[in-house]
């Protein structure tokens, strides 16, 4: 846990609102995430966590401030370079509709390597190994429609990690799962983040999932209002105390 994979400096994102005026969906937020660190971004609806995640995913440009992934400032990149950064440096899992429906589990994971020009035999073997590690060795040739929600999320996790990105982002990865599956998925995610020395950020409204993270960033009204680093305090939060 030494290198800083992500640096967020005084980021502001302003949106125009209907009928005139503006609103700061993200308001002067700063934080770092180191390689091998798994962070939860929590907060109520409208707190700005999804906007923050979109900025970190290079899908949205901040109005002001800096976002550095592996030292590269997102705001200074044109669209083409942002696309390149997304496929090389970022891994992403979404709430739902995560996988390409006409690709098998193995193909979905391997697609990330294809995108990066590494979709060779060795890449296919790595994909299969990672999926086996996630307990999906018997599902390699299954299409997403033939898998449960939890299995699909695990495939998405494998896809987010297969190309060794600097930053792995997860948007409500447990939203469509039952409690047991949700715990399994987040635990696996956390283990892989730690083992592979990636920086991981999970946006979640389900505080129970925080039991697997190293740090909790709490947002409210666009501001970063609290950073919880103490393990005991995180566990209390996860228990709802």
């Amino acid at each position, binding site marked *: 846990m030494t290198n800083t994979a992500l640096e967020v400096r005084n980021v502001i994102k302003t949106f125009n609102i209907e009928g005139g005026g503006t609103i700061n969906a993200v308001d002067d937020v700063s934080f770092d995430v180191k390689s091998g660190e798994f962070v939860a971004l929590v907060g109520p609806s409208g707190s700005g966590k*999804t906007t923050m*995640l*979109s900025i970190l*995913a290079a*899908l*949205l440009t901040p109005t002001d401030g800096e976002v550095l992934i592996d030292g590269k400032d997102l705001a200074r990149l044109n669209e*083409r370079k942002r*696309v*390149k950064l*997304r*496929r*090389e440096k*970022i891994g*992403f899992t*979404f709430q739902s*509709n*995560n*996988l*390409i*429906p*006409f*690709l098998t589990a193995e*193909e979905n994971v391997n697609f*990330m390597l*294809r*995108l*990066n*020009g590494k979709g060779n035999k060795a890449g296919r073997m790595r994909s299969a190994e990672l999926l086996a590690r996630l307990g999906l060795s018997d599902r390699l040739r299954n*299409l997403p429609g033939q898998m449960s929600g939890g299995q699909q999320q695990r495939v998405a996790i494998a*896809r987010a990690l297969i190309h060794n990105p600097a930053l792995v982002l997860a*948007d409500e990865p447990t939203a469509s799962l039952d409690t047991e599956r949700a715990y399994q998925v987040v635990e696996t995610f956390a283990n892989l983040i730690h083992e592979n020395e990636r920086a991981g950020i999970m946006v979640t409204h389900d505080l129970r999932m925080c039991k697997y993270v190293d740090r909790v960033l709490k947002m409210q009204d666009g501001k970063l209002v609290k950073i919880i680093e103490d393990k005991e305090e995180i566990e209390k939060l996860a228990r709802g105390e």
Partner: protein
Amino acid sequence: MRTFFLAFYLAIKEILRNKGRFLLVSLVIALITLLVLFIAALGEGLADGNRQYVANLDAQLVVFLEKSDYSISASRLDTNTIRAVRRVEGVADAGEIFTSTSEIVSLEEPLSISMLAAEPGKPGMPPTVEGRPFRGGEASEAVIDEGVALQSDIKVGDEIEIRSTQGTEDEFFFLKVVGLVPKQSYFFQPTIFVPQATWEKMRPQPAADLNDSTPYPNIIAVKLENPAQVELMKERLETQVTNIEVADIETTINNIPGYTAQQSTVQTQGAFTLLIGILVIGGFFQIQVLQKVPQIGVLKAIGSSNGAVGLASVIQIIITTAMGVGIGGGLTYLFSLSFPPTIPLAFDGTRSILAVIALLLIGPLGGMVSIIYAVRIEPLKALKLA
């Protein structure tokens, strides 16, 4: 190059894993292909039926009576005109053509025909592919075209009976079939060729014409020494020969009564079918893209370029369209085998080739909107992160 391979991979995988959906679109394209090819073949067949004899003339120019507006039936030339035309410098050869209609009645069902007279070996008389040309004078001999043979089973060596209305009476004439020429349809009817004097004796005519046994040609087909000098020779002929007007073959065809109007109608039908095809295909692909918005959003969010997403759509559209046109072409061929020869369908014309090219373009044209839509999808909105 990587973008192309990635797009090709996505396109092929999606088609293979959604065979039913893409086959359905291909079948719709196949039906449109069937319709367009039949309209094209009908247009070609109708055009052939009308113009085939004129289009096959071994000549570059056609001489008409002055002010006949290049209408073959309205033109009736003086008997001296042929000599004057042959004397003009640059004319390689010229042949008189006499036209009328008649009926072969020595069959179970009478067969309407175009009865033409032309001089063997001269422009206007096609070479025989079987038998021999007829003799001159008033020989009771005829050369039939393959259209007559196909529709009646008449063969070289047979005798045929012709009915002709002269004055107010029906007259009957017997002719021996001595030769066969390739299909020479004229005015939608198969053709027989007879000697000039025989033609004059047999042609339907009003009572007033019966006392005059001189055959007057309708037109003269002119073969040039230099086929490239059409305009120059047209002007020279009109200057040096009195009481004539001269047209090239294309003008002659376009002035065949009803030809232009008929072709415009068929072409308009074809164009509208293609237009409807573009709209239908466009609708299909647009619905497909709308269903795939989240999937395209994921692709873009994980780092696929707009180029790869757009190209994948283009490749899918091209493959689906090509499959549809292929299936449609095959169906058209199978259907065409079941049509009797009397229906004017011709699939070997440039019109069919143009129709196939146009059909291959309707997919990409129809899918253009969906491709642009796919490229413009914003991953944030597609993934409902906005």
